[in-house]
């Protein structure tokens, strides 16, 4: 993809992010941080490419280390978000 296409996606996504995040209820701001943390670990894509491709052993090991770190975040982030969200209940009656 050329730089301008990528930049367009980025700028539009910033606007989407702006409006979506303002619509998040303040009561869920902590789960919001936990889940944004989990999804920002999509950086694992880069780590996987480095770990998968042949060519540079150093890059491969850096990639594998990145996969471990990002996995901690992905599993930990989604799991802790799920745990928190499960606690939010309406009054039972």
């Amino acid at each position, binding site marked *: 993809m050329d730089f301008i296409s990528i930049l367009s996606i980025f700028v539009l996504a910033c606007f989407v992010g702006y409006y979506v995040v303002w619509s998040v209820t*303040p009561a869920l701001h902590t789960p919001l941080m936990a889940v944004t943390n989990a999804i920002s670990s999509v950086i694992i*894509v880069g780590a996987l490419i480095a770990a998968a491709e042949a060519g540079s052993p150093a890059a491969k090991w850096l990639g594998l280390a990145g996969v471990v770190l990002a996995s901690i975040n992905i599993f930990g982030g989604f799991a802790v978000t799920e745990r928190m969200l499960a606690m939010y209940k309406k009054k039972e009656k």
Partner: protein
Amino acid sequence: MLTKILPASLASPAALWASPALAASDSASTTSPWVALAYLVAGVFFILALRGLSSPATSRTGNRFGMAGMLIAIVTTLVTHSVASLAEIGIAIAIGGLIGFLIARRIAMTAMPELVAAFHSLVGLAAVLVGWAAYLNPGAFGLLEGDAIGAVSKVEMGLGIAIGAITFSGSVIAFAKLSGRMSGAPILLPARHVINLGTLAAIIGLTAMFAMTTGPEETLPLIVGLTVLAFAIGFLLIIPIGGADMPVVVSMLNSYSGWAAAAMGFTLGNTAMIITGALVGSSGAILSYIMCRAMNRSFLSVIAGGFGADDSAAGGGEAREQRPYKQGSADDAAFMLEQAEKVIVIPGYGMAVAQAQHALREMTDILEEKGVEVKFAIHPVAGRMPGHMNVLLAEANVPYDKVFELEDINSEFSQADVAFIIGANDVVNPAAKTDKSSPIYGMPVFDVGAAKQVFFIKRSMGGVGYAGVDNDVFYMDQTMMLLSDAKKMVEEIVKALD
């Protein structure tokens, strides 16, 4: 296009690099439209994940969308690359996943801020590792123009590494401060603004030089210097910021972790990463803004640091005047709570420290059975991170439709019989409205003075909030001070109510 062989003379540093003969051709992700589409779907799922958080009722579906998006991104990557080491990757995911899962299961809800800070540091470090891997094996990432990395790619790579490193070291300090492994007091270096601005300028300069030079031997010292300085600036930026400002710092680092992912997304031309980075970046920025507004502080003054540094000088220097206040017992409080029609509870971080939330919920349950209307009022900066108090109340089974934000409930204090303050202080201090010299002047606060009766649970008359200022609410006619440990006091009230 990879026919040029590196000169053999570049033995030592070049050994790190991919040998051009082995390097893969341009990454598949830049060619097939289906692959690009899959990453786009992942990105859209991440948008839906955040969209779900607009209400607790839809939030869990949102979280599932997030998981699905992540799965799509990971599978797409693995399927479209010639994976030479699937077993190793599987082990790496299993190790990381297990650690993450166990931490998520065991962490106490009071410790959420430090957990989030720790997780941010991992995203930051992962970004640094990916940036370095892309530098060492550009062919795998489809970054080669001829036999060198393109200048634009190098700028993106340099920025990604720098933001990632800042996120990492900044989050490590935030984690240490939040978890009490390091004093929350600001550490002020002399001439820190000069040092920080100089380091930032050096990072930008190195990135520019890195983009303009070619050849392993020339670029290696630049990228090493860039990485080291970025780690240093993350550390330097956070150590002068005091404990009271940590909610802003955690939100800010949240934002940085997003920008790091976005920068890497630019490098790799990956839509999922760019969308996510933009979402997370805006999310953290908005949360920082909300926190700053709730404290009436400008973002720059938080970043400049030093807030809370002169607390001891202001509080300890002058003897505070002794003013008369009324002290009550649990029995007095229980009696008056029973008589009330409407009670508004204002919980603060002190409640969480005392682990009083479960006893508090018990107390409000009894009151509701007796026909008293109970509402919870939450200030945006209650707790140690945005929304922290809501999670703590949810954990104690307080229904979320009884919990209200500052602007939604502040007008109701005039109809309330009792304002019940537990573990909060600065957020009810009227000095924020009246005293221009007060450090908290301008901060939005609860109008507890409008309530007929105020109960203030506090350990002793000595300690005064984060901001270190006296609170006129203590001395109001309708205020009764309940001086005790929060949990003990609430348990006694529960006993007296039975």
